[in-house]
């Protein structure tokens, strides 16, 4: 049996990159053979042309930039705040008792349902969209971080105490590394949810962003432009997921 000499990790990455490319090739072929209606589902080559035009006019960059900005900012705020609150809740019974019911009540609300409320609070510009993304990630990260802290083996705290760990080292050498894996698994889920929420908010209340591009193209029946948007948001999601994965690999090398 022929065996690839590429190390498993590299092979995994190649597959990750190749699978969407393969999908595009099949799609183009199916379109050219007339097996699907190009008016509703344009071929990748048509979409490529549309992409080029949108790039030339500068529109695409504006939209992608707007979405990227909201996603990155909202995601970062939500993550940092979620880790902070989750740690406080995990380490302090009183804080946990006070905030746990609130988190439990707010968590199941679809963030898009309170988007009008967020617009009242943060305005109809970037603020409300960033807030929607941040809230989505924040709640998830809070719950995950708290769970992570609570599930740290007591024996580790005994070790830290026995070796007289200063308070700061208790965080940097014990608590934070112990909860990193569960935080990352939360962020992976959070990323998907954040994209849903962000695109939805851009559908309904925006003059920019990939969500807006998709929705406005749909309204004008510019299906190829719509597909450019769909592909952009997909690529954005893949890139973000890859960044997360790489970060996780570097920050939790013992896993």
């Amino acid at each position, binding site marked *: 049996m022929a065996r690839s000499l590429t190390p498993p990790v590299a092979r995994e990455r190649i597959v990750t990159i190749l699978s969407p490319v393969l999908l595009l090739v099949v799609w183009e072929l199916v379109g050219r053979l007339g097996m699907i209606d190009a008016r509703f589902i344009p071929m990748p080559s048509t979409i490529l042309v549309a992409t080029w035009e949108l790039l030339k006019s500068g529109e695409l960059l504006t939209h992608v930039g707007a979405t990227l900005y909201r996603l990155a900012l909202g995601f970062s705020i939500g993550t940092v705040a979620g880790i902070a609150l989750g740690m406080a809740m995990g380490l302090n019974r009183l804080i946990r008792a006070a905030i746990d019911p609130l988190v439990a009540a707010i968590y199941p609300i679809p963030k898009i349902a309170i988007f009008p409320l967020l617009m009242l609070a943060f305005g109809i510009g970037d603020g409300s969209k960033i807030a929607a993304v941040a809230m989505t990630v924040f709640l998830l990260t809070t719950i995950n971080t708290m769970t992570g802290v609570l599930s740290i083996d007591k024996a580790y705290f005994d070790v830290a105490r026995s*070796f007289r760990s200063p308070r700061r080292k208790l965080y940097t050498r014990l608590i934070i590394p112990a909860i990193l894996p569960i935080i990352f698994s939360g962020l992976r889920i959070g990323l998907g949810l954040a994209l849903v929420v962000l695109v939805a908010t851009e559908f309904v209340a925006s003059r920019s962003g990939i969500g807006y591009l998709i929705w406005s193209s749909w309204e004008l029946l510019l299906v190829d432009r719509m597909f450019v948007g769909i592909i952009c948001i997909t690529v954005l999601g893949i890139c973000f997921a890859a960044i997360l994965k790489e970060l996780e690999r570097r920050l939790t090398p013992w896993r």
Partner: protein
Amino acid sequence: MRDDRQKGGLDFVAGKGRPLTDEATIEATGLRKLFGMPGHETIALEDFSLAVAKGEFVSLLGPSGCGKTTALRILADLETASSGTARIHRRKGTDSPSNSMVFQEHSLFPWLSVIDNVAYGLEMRGVAKQERLDRARPFLEMVGLAKFANHYPGQLSGGMRQRVSLARAYVNDPDVLLMDEPFAALDAQNKLIMQQELLRIWEKDRKTVLFVTHAIDEAIVLSDRIVVMTAAPGRIKRIISVDFPRPRNAAEMRADSRFGNLSLDIWRTLEEEVLTARAQADG
């Protein structure tokens, strides 16, 4: 004998001119520990008094739940006694801690490399990175794991992890080593090898050790004295001297007829406590 204890090894500072054995390093007087809510307490430890001389290896032996680990944890300052006093006498002129604990399995931090785990105590004391790595390395060599410095604990076997744990405690150069059933989770062969290792390392510089175990043979192999405890509430039932000469060999000792006699003797002392403990657990 006495001179041996001062010789060699890892920064062992003996009390100047004073006979070593007269100096109690661990001194517990009338320790009592209650657990639970007021009014519904259970007594874990009762009237526990023990003095361990400098350079002595003492085991606490008893059925599970007899409070032997509680006694150790009080000495380690991980629990406070309900009454009584526990003291570890410090040698002078050192900034090293009074005690270091060797825990049961899974006490290494999975996210720290082996060398960082060994150097953990030094890091907590604020020793600079390069210095603590330099100081940790000989101890990793001492337990035969120099090659694994940059591995993570998850990549090691249970026996190797306990060696790292031992090195971590030794680097700290404490006055007293407290060991809480460190080999309990190992299989029989690895246990024997680790006992052998511990004998070899300990006999070099004879740090004062208090070693908790529920295995009679382990207690005999390692100890100068064995403290047999009763079932809960844990009291000291009997203290037995183990007069086997050192250096000892963990495997050969077991073939000695005195070993068999001693272990039978200890078992007779322990048997009713084990039965009581079992009845307590069932009830």
